[in-house]
């Protein structure tokens, strides 16, 4: 379980998160929606410890993110997929995926490679195992990014706008894989602009606006309009995304 309580995050004088409370149960898929600057990426970066928190608390299965020793346990439990892929450019696709299992989890190289090959196979990239990231398309890079995250056998998958750098066709190939994962019951927090994707995979939708949670509703209620959409800010956001055609 991920428990975020009264999370505040400031960058200097700028308050990015102003008291966020959120709980994620195992098996849940939660999408975080919100405009640019709403603090949604910052929230994910606080969970995996890339940003220190200003006040409040985040616990992942009882491990405190702000405790330096426990942070490592948190990071073993949560794997992140990044918007800009951020693969290790000097390593082959296979090495990108096996590096963390071998050095962080102390898996044997052989086991790590077997797992990596299985994962690559499941995303249709088995034949790319020996190439370098620079030789892949954006969609392929992000599929490798997903494999790299899954190779850690994480309890939680953190997705930070994973399709924002991709064109529609590549977006589709990445989303297909994530949908499959969601069906298999992995726990996910997904920060996204893809409303349709959020609608398809999420159990819950959290809408963030200016560092506060505006609504936190089961998917059906959010999209039915009797909940989140009652708020004009959410309706405006959705209509601007161009994906939502007056169902409210």
């Amino acid at each position, binding site marked *: 379980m991920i428990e975020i309580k009264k999370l505040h995050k400031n960058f200097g004088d700028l308050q990015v998160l102003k008291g966020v409370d959120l709980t994620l149960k195992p098996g849940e898929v939660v999408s975080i929606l919100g405009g640019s600057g709403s603090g949604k990426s910052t929230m994910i970066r606080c969970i995996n410890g890339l940003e220190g928190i200003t006040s409040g608390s985040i616990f992942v299965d009882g491990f405190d993110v702000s405790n330096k020793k426990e942070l490592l346990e948190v990071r073993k439990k949560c794997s992140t997929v990044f918007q800009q892929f*951020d693969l290790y450019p000097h390593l082959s696709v296979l090495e990108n995926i096996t*590096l963390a299992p071998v050095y*962080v989890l102390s898996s044997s190289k052989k086991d790590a490679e077997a797992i990596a090959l299985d994962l690559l196979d499941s995303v249709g990239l088995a034949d790319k195992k020996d190439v370098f990231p620079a030789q892949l398309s954006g969609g392929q890079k992000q599929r490798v990014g997903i494999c790299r995250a899954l190779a850690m056998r994480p309890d939680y998958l953190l997705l930070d706008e994973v399709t924002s750098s991709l064109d529609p066709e590549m977006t589709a190939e990445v989303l297909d894989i994530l949908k499959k994962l969601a069906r298999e019951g992995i726990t996910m927090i997904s920060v996204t602009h893809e409303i349709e994707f959020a609608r398809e995979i999420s159990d819950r939708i959290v809408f963030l606006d200016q560092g506060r949670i505006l609504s936190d509703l089961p998917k059906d209620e959010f999209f039915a309009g009797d909940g989140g959409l009652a708020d004009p800010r959410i309706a405006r956001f959705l209509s601007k995304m161009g994906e939502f055609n007056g169902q409210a």
Partner: protein
Amino acid sequence: MLDLASITEYVPAFLDGFIITAEVSILSILGSFILGILIALMRVSSNRFLNYTSLVYVDLFRNIPFIVLIFFGYYGLPEIGVYMDAFWTGCLVLSIAVGAYVGETIRAGILSVEKGILEAARSFGFSKFQIYAKIILPIALTISVRPLGSVFINLILTTSILSSITLNELTGVSKVIASTTFRPFEVYVFLVIFYGLLTFMISALISLWHRHLNRYLGEEAS
């Protein structure tokens, strides 16, 4: 005019000199490389003491003429009881002086590693040491390899100054041969060609190394 035949009998002596030049060069390249990595890591460290110490080191050794350093090491230090022969004094002083340049070159490489890649690595739970050893330094090296090549070629050329502390490396040997044969023109033509070929070969090796390290960039590189 040019009468190379007059110095052919000295070719074995030239070779002896060359072997010393090669030994000093290889040892000093290794020494300055290891020292340079340490200096670079100290320069990017968040520890203020390490940071400041390395900054002073770099500024100091980049701003003193090499010949002054080598005189200090060979003629100065024995006064306070530190003795070393010309060969090891040369290796040590070259490593220390060139280490400052290597350090700055690798630091530039480290600073150009993309922040996102480091964050990704941190998010997976690698230790600081693992991130440096497996990700930052390998990437930094691929970026620094060309400027590093110039630094090392400069090092090889600088070994000629060691002739001034009685080391009979290539240049020292040549001086002796020139004064024995009274054929300075031939001797130094030979020497010029020799240094030229040597650094040309080193450049070629650096290019190969560069291509090898940057193979991950695919076709667009090199």
